């Protein structure tokens, strides 16, 4: 079931220079939301809604973490607590749930979408950021995860470099139920290849520009291989989470 809620903004927090966390009250959506699903937010006068992942569910509220990228997210960052947002959700297929410990891998603004996985499952986590100023949600993950490795590309915080070497260190130590990942496409591709080498199932959350957000318009195409034939599936409805073995990487 998908709902349209007029959700009031409970509070706002600036996590980094251009990254904000908002808590919005939307009981219907919160009750149904699963890790990896997203909401579609109307931003002022914009024709198209903006898709933002549900980072975390807390009672009647959901937490959204977003980076200001263009006009829509700029508008969002200018709204005040108490104001209402027109949001549709929960949308899409989230991450599958595993009993066995999972390895979470998030990169940049792909870090928030795996937070709810840390709440629901036993997990270790590798987070990657460009530099120390961009590091977000470290405390939230460390409260829930067994092992936590934070990597920065410029060595300004935590481990130096990309997420994959740290991920490999952890994969060598134990057999995980799955790798669950969100981040830029080149990172996801590398994560998927590494998981495959360690014979570990891998699920990735993909991004594509959206229209309807509910599966009707077919603009949010991701190429997927099933039974030897390639086809375009809908990121909004068939995804955003896909089995990494099926994804045909276009990067």
């Amino acid at each position, binding site marked *: 079931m998908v709902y349209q809620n007029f959700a009031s903004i409970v509070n706002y927090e600036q996590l980094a220079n251009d990254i904000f966390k908002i808590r919005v009250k939307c009981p219907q959506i919160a009750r149904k939301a699963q890790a990896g699903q997203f909401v579609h937010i*109307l931003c002022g006068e914009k*024709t198209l809604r903006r898709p933002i992942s549900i980072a975390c569910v807390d009672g009647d509220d959901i937490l959204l973490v977003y980076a200001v990228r263009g006009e829509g997210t700029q508008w969002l960052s200018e709204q005040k607590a108490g104001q209402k947002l*027109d949001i549709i959700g929960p949308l899409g297929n989230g991450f599958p749930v595993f009993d066995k410990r999972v390895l979470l891998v998030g990169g940049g603004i792909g870090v928030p979408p795996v937070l709810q996985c840390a709440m629901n499952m036993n997990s270790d986590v590798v987070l990657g950021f460009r530099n120390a100023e961009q590091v977000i949600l470290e405390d939230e993950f460390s409260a829930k995860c067994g092992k936590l490795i934070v990597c920065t590309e410029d060595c300004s915080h935590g481990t130096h470099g990309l997420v994959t070497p740290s991920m490999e260190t952890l994969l060598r130590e134990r057999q995980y139920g799955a790798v669950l990942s969100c981040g830029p496409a080149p990172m996801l591709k590398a994560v998927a290849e590494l998981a495959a080498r360690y014979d570990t199932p891998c699920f990735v959350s993909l991004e594509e520009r959206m229209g*309807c957000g509910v599966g009707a318009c077919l603009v*949010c195409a991701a190429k997927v291989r099933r039974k030897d034939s390639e086809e375009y599936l809908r990121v909004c*409805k068939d995804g955003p989470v896909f089995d990494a073995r099926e994804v045909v990487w276009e990067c």
Partner: protein
Amino acid sequence: MLNVNICGINFKNPVITASGTYGFGKDYADFFPLEKLGGIACKGTTLHPRPGNAPPRIAETPSGMLNSVGLQNPGVDRFIEHELPWLLEQNTVIIANAAGAAVEDYVENVSKMSSSGVHMIELNISCPNVKEGGVAFGTSCGSVGSIVGAAKKVSANVPLIVKLSPNVSNISEIARSAEAAGADALSLINTITGMKIDAETRRPILRNNVGGLSGPAILPVAVRMVWEVRRAVKLPIIGMGGVTTWRDAAELILAGADAIQIGTACFTDPYAPLKIIEGLENWVKSQGCTNIRELSGAVESY
């Protein structure tokens, strides 16, 4: 008050969701029962399945959007087998939308549709004609006449709506050709070809470079074209292009439309059709009319 009859088909209201924006209905059924709609125009289907274009397939533009889906669809057989039975239970008018790349494809497609139980068939003639160097069928009077004539021969007793492309220099002439070739009704407008380029990367946003413009930005073009076509032909007209509020719908109706379709507005607000239906009802009352038909073409032009 809002019921209209087009080619013998009864619509409980003149608000229809537009082809390609509402899929096969199911995806939107969580928001409200589809029977509240006057009708549903289904995603354009071709004779054989089509994979569609590479992404990105959408770009936002001032008061609108461009799309380059490229007619991704499961093919007419799958449409009839898997999507249609459920749609026909929804107690609303179901309009199949036919697309193709050659006259023979359209003919076979339409003949399958005409025996499938759909209430009406909308012929999308904005598709490129592969045999004629990719020029859209809908852009010359000759090719409109031949495609409509051929489709009409196999559409049996299912009313054939011809959906006009706005990418032409004289829409009235095209409309007359469709009428002469036997069209039962016209719908307009399809999207207007456009392009958006990222200034920094110098790259088009759409992987297909160009796409079709829809949304509020195209409403005035749609109103003008419906107004012109109303004066050119006697056929019923289904108007569309940028309808977002009941006022937009009222403009198209005053310009000459008998019913309207809503596309992009559902992306912004899935409840837009219901709000428009309610708004139109109040409008008809406030105009002192008993049925919306009285307002079709009722613009007092200078």
